């Protein structure tokens, strides 16, 4: 125990200045704590490698300058190459002007084979296990009840699809024009791009999962554990806002294969579908296939009453 040689004199304490002094002292104490915290954080950061420090302090993708983006891309490519033992390309292609991507899915054709699910997992580097992540959920429904999500079966597993008396409804991110998921994010880690794709900055997401509660379509998935991506199966053609390998503790979702579609390719699920149930195109182009479908077929939106305004249209081709 140390002796305090100068106990405060009563006079000093009783001075009218006291309460100001007091709050000053409180605030110096608080700022002291803040400094201590900053110093501690600094000490931790100082013990990291320069790359780790840079990664930790990286700003929001949307706020990065051109030079910063280049640095981030280089850092990530090196990191992935090291981790997966092969070169990666992390693209940052911006939205194509005058483009608003839209999707149409023909319920009368879908046979529920789930090939789209697996193609998506492969193309987009989703975690293979513990727990597996799949951006597309195919729901099996009873023809007698019609489209009723609450009565659907996500885990159907018959010997052969389609099953008698049933039809299938794949659900993935509907790329809402009025997305509830982006609004709720406390840190602005997810947003809608000019071409209508809703993306996540995996390096900014804090993993609070507000967006998962807000999404009415179960389209957002969380990396509960370390994502499990076998190096030999990894897709090296990636996009920063899309299929680049993710880390634990962040949210991910379908991006209409941003790494492909911004280069003029079709999404992987469109290409793989054996019955041609999936259509994709530019909603602003009057000649596009999706526009033709919207204008000529019987189209409906899932959970239309929530006013999320999906750019994903279900239709009956026949």
């Amino acid at each position, binding site marked *: 125990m140390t002796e305090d040689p100068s106990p405060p004199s009563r006079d000093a304490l009783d001075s009218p200045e006291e309460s100001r002094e007091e709050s000053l002292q409180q605030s110096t104490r608080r700022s002291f704590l803040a400094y201590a915290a900053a110093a501690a954080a600094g000490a931790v950061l100082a013990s990291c490698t320069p790359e780790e420090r840079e990664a930790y302090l990286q700003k929001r993708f949307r*706020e990065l300058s051109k030079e910063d983006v280049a640095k981030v891309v280089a850092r990530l490519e090196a990191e992935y190459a090291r981790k997966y033992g092969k070169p990666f390309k992390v693209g940052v292609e911006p939205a194509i002007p005058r483009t608003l991507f839209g999707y149409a899915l023909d319920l009368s054709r879908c046979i529920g084979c789930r090939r789209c699910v697996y193609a998506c997992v492969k193309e987009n580097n989703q975690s293979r296990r513990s727990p597996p992540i799949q951006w597309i959920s195919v729901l099996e429904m009873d023809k007698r009840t019609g489209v009723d999500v609450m009565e659907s079966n996500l885990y159907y597993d018959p010997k052969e699809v389609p099953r008698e008396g049933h039809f299938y409804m794949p659900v993935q991110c509907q790329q809402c024009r009025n997305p509830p998921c982006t609004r709720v994010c*406390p840190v*602005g880690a997810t947003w809608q791009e000019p071409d209508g794709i809703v993306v996540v900055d995996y390096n900014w997401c*804090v993993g609070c*999962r507000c967006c998962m509660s807000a999404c009415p379509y179960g389209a957002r998935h969380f*990396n509960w554990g370390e994502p499990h991506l076998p190096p030999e199966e990894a897709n090296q053609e990636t996009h920063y806002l899309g299929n680049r390998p993710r880390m634990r503790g962040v949210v991910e979702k379908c991006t209409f294969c941003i790494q492909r579609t911004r280069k003029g390719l079709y999404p992987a699920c469109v290409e793989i579908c054996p019955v041609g149930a999936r259509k994709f195109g530019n909603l602003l182009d009057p000649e596009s296939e999706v526009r033709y479908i919207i204008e000529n077929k019987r189209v409906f939106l899932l959970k239309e009453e929530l006013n999320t305004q999906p750019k994903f249209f279900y239709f009956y081709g026949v």
Partner: protein
Amino acid sequence: MPFVEFTVNSVRTVLRGNRAYWLWIVFLLALVGIGGFGYAHQVRSGLIATHMRDPVSWGFYIGNFTFLVGVAAAAVVLVIPAYVYHWKPIKEIVVFGELLAVAAIVMCGLFVLVDMGRPDRLWHLIPWIGHWNGPGSILAWDALVLNLYFLLNFVIVTHILFRGFNGREYSKRFATPLILLSIPAAVSIHTVTAFLYNGMAARPYWNSAILAPRFLASAFCSGPAIMLILLQVVRKIMPIEIKDEALWKIAELMAYAMFVNLFLFGAEIFREYYSRTEHLLFFRYAYSGLNGHRTLVPFTWLALFCSVTAFLLFLIPRTRKNWVALNVGAVLIFAGVYIEKGVALVIPGYTPSVLGEIFEYFPSRTEAMVSAGVFGVGFLLYTLMVKVAVAIMTGRLSSRRSEAAGV
């Protein structure tokens, strides 16, 4: 440096105590240790150590958070009747209430932290340094108001206790406006927390306009329940006069709050069961089970039983004025609201999921351990703060004393 002296002496105070005190401290430290162990495991393996998964993406942690926001809010709201009825121990109620609020907010913060997928990125939430995604994000608002509320309460109690330490009354000009401000602030933190759920149209179970009023009503039951027990303890160990009438009045007010709570619940139940829309599924999951999935059913009924029993105990003057019945009632209310907020609010919101999946969630062992740890930290903090506050308010700890003792 009077503040340093204050701090040093406070530390000395908490290091002195009888056997019971130390047993309690050791118990709490053990809880903290268990929590630390659990959290270390969670940090190593990720949130996969919990039983939350994509269909049920929030669970026990966020339930506890919600409950504790209610406690933080309601502890302070007792200040209103203290003023209205001119209770003698206003200052004590203010001090113990606001200390409780401080401890509860610390626990809230910890529960949010342990629920985060990337706790290392906490700084992203700080305005200007990170990115504050207001005004759209309710969680961004919640983080803001909770921090302000914490600061407000912290400043008030520090002021009162520091003044008391120097043998002086608190400055009415400085403290009273802040105390009065803390009341609407208390209401706002709980309202904003309710809106966090309320605003999600994807989850019909939460998307009901009376959710925020229900939150407030239930919090006005659980917060005072703690204070009721606490004030009895305080007047045993301190020469502070707290009249029986004041305690009975608190119980009576809790009975009214519980009435409103049950009434609002009834209104909700009527709407769901009479109109029988698809949204009934969530209530059915909670109260009768869905397709044989009944994990939650015993809990929801237990909560209802606790609430109704406590309501009756507090409503009838004879039982209200009986100390045994009163304390049983306080515990029942606390338990009832805890289950209601911790379990029956969050989980049925996700079950069935937005795609109709029934994923039965129940907290994992890690979740239980971590939660115990968070409660350990909160109770420890509260115990230590109350110890100092009691010492100051009884005059055992003061600058004059330390001067006289030559410390």
